[in-house]
């Protein structure tokens, strides 16, 4: 049900853009109003979400330790997997964010002849990494539409990315990787019964949306071969707050833009916020030196405790008979 609903939702978005542009000529709506609203929702929602998380304190120091602690000087500490310094935490987080360290540990459990075994299972890690980096490169490549002059690194990325030099214009490898990876991430949800069981509309919708973005982008570059300078002019106009929706660009371009706007607007209210959340995860972003340096809980409050005096009052006679020392004789 989630799959179909997500597919229909993304299809509806596409049709809305087609009808909106070709039928109703709503270039101002799809080319200005919606992108602005989406950008505002993205920034506002993102900031609000992060501030919301930050408002809740971290009462306890609860890193998941994945290596040897710092204890005796002759025992080698795992300074990254069990960091006791801020530098260690920064490196640990860098591995997590840039290389998906934890996902790299992934294994697959299997029972064969009553015996359990663990198979290496790096697919999810590899493809998730490919997806995220491809997405990053694609976003950077698009900077050529938002910046004038185009920064050198953007040109360099585009050049490397388009090394295939086939056809004209060249296929960007990242476009293919992106589409392939998203398809894989979708397929595993569909073909693995366990994953299908846990998957929600919220899982399928962003995948379809990303596929829509990738496919429409591919269409614009390789099939429709749109006028890139017109697109750039329009993007620059949006940036300087005097929007001039391009008349020269067709409905698919506006659909592409609408997809991206939807993604931006959807982002802060969805699981996609894992992008920011990973930085705030207390099991990863804290030093594991809780016996060395006291961690303060802002809401720590006194609780009712059973004091030694109350204890001795109850058991005094028996303690005396047993020869245990007492604070008070009676």
């Amino acid at each position, binding site marked *: 049900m989630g799959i179909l609903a997500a597919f229909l939702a993304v299809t509806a978005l596409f049709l809305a853009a087609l009808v909106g542009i070709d039928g109703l000529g709503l270039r101002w709506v799809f080319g200005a109003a919606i992108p602005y609203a989406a950008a505002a929702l993205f920034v506002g929602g993102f900031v609000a979400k992060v501030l919301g998380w930050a408002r809740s304190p971290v009462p306890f120091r609860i890193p998941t330790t994945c290596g040897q*602690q710092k204890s005796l000087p002759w025992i080698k500490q795992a300074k990254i997997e069990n960091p006791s310094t801020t530098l260690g935490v920064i490196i640990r987080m860098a591995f997590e964010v840039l290389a998906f360290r934890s996902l790299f540990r992934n294994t697959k459990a299997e029972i064969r002849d009553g015996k359990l075994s663990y198979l290496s299972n790096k697919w999810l890690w590899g493809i998730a990494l490919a997806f995220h980096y491809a997405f990053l490169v694609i976003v950077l490549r698009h900077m050529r539409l938002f910046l004038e002059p185009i920064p050198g690194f953007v040109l360099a990325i585009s050049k490397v990315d388009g090394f295939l030099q086939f056809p004209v214009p060249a296929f960007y490898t990242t476009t293919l990787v992106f589409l392939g990876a998203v398809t894989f991430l979708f397929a595993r949800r569909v073909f693995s019964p366990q994953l299908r069981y846990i998957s929600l509309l919220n899982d399928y919708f962003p995948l379809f949306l990303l596929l829509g973005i990738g496919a429409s982008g591919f269409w614009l570059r390789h099939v429709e071969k749109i006028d890139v300078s017109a697109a750039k002019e329009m993007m620059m106009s949006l940036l300087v707050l005097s929007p001039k929706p391009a008349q020269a660009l067709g409905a698919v371009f506006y659909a592409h833009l609408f997809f991206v706007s939807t993604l931006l607007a959807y982002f802060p*209210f969805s699981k996609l916020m894992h992008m920011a959340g990973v930085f705030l995860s207390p099991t990863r972003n804290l030093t*594991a030196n*809780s016996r060395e340096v006291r961690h303060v809980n802002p809401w720590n409050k006194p609780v009712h405790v059973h004091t030694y005096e109350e204890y001795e009052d109850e058991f005094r006679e*028996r303690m005396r008979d047993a020869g245990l*020392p007492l604070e008070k004789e009676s």
Partner: protein
Amino acid sequence: MSSGHEKKFKPDQMEYYDRDELVQIDYRRVPEKGWMDEPADIRHGNFIYPANPQKLEYIGFPNARHWSPLEKDWKLPSNWKEIVLQGIRERLDKYRSFKVFMDICVRCGACADKCHFYIGGGDPKNMPVLRAELLRSIYRNDFTTAGKLLGKMVGARPLTIDVIKEWFLYFYQCTECRRCSVFCPYGIDTAEITMMARELLNLLGININWIIQPVADCYRTGNHLGIQPHGLKDTLEFFTEDIEEATGVKVDVPMNKKGADILFVTPSGDFLAEPGIYTCMGYMAIFHELGLNYTWSTYASEGGNFGFFTSADMMKALNSKIYAEAKRLGVKWILGGECGHMWRVLHQYMDTMNGPADFLEVPVSPITGTRFEHARSTKMIHIVEFLADAIKHGKLKLDPTRNDGRRVTFHDSCNPARGMGMLEEPRYVLKNVCNNFFEMPSNTIREQTFCCGGGAGLGTEENMEVRLRGGMPRGNAVRHVQEKHDVNVLAACCAIDRATLTNVCDYWAPGVKVSGISELVANALVMKGEKAREIDFRKEPMRPEELVRPEEPEAAKDPKHAKEAAHV
């Protein structure tokens, strides 16, 4: 469940469950209906009995009453929904972990087959992701815009009695072992979610006696077992007799002693249950031999903390006794025994909750002079850290050949592994006291270690099926080294492990016995004035290999055994 077995045995007995049937698990088979439409199947063998209302009242927990999970009516307070939603709201404001973990899961499924309960049971609701969704679905429904608008489509569902029943079943099928959090790309820790869910259930008076009774007893008597001060003295004195019988050395039992340098705190499981008591005897023999100026406390006679499995406040209340007693007795620092969740609480919570311990000194070993800087704020160190240091400095006279009949593997307890990182110290100690040490497969040790299946207050009998299933991954790894290396001893530094892994081994790897580290150290310990060590604390032959070897013809053929025989 098991055909021929069920007539003779009851669901709370191991024998009720057929081993071959239990492992018939097909992970790819999931219920046809969606998980929200699948009500919790609560039956004998998979849940733990509710708390005794008197115990609940004693510790001031709300809504104490008699009720049964098997009955339709759970006798909830009339405003139960309000209580739960308000409870969620408060906890979202108090814990960033809870708030972030409710929002950022992408359901990638990497955690799914990392949970011992899922691996051993195949119930999809034991996938950590789905366990969290049980609570997340309510969060979405009442605390997020998308959930309010789109409901079930986006994984939201209204809070109903059935949800509460499901929480009771599945949040008491999580041992807070944190293995899933090692594999989660965002570090989502199901232990945090389970803790929140259990706090919420506690607000409704829904809890289990196996946790609440120890909590109430600990509150009153200082330990989970409810041992009163004179009883503890008797117990420890009784241990000295066993130690004397085995070693010929009479050790003393300093109790509630003012002016001692060190307060020693251990889980009370070490006072009562086999094989924990042998670990306890081990501590006593070692401390005697080292001439430590230490003391036991009757008031703080519990290192473990079942309060941790109810609420942060109760954890703090029970834990407070340790620092209070250290202050009253005027000790310099605190030494802790072999326990799992105890060390999570001591390492990650104690100083925050009940510190600063500015009345204590940074722990310094009186034997070696080593200053334990890594514990300079909390002022409490682990006995295995202490022993590793003493052995490194050659301060313990050891004869590891005494353990030659023991072919040992080491089970990393969840909390010292994933909530502390004490991985090398126990291995160093074991390798110095045992000549035959073998590791289990790498996916099952260190930070990837598997739970015994009975942690977080689940180590009782009425949930036997759940425990055996949860113990399957660990049992499977033990059987692997048993078949490969003839391992016959599973060492563990946790009282719950010593109790529950005994069942796990009896079921999944019969013939393997569970032992504490200090017990094995004390076996090898050469004491001043000792007699010939013929028996261990279990009153079993110290060198069983010498007794059995002549009758075992294959021992001579097998080169591995032959080498060992030559060594002896």
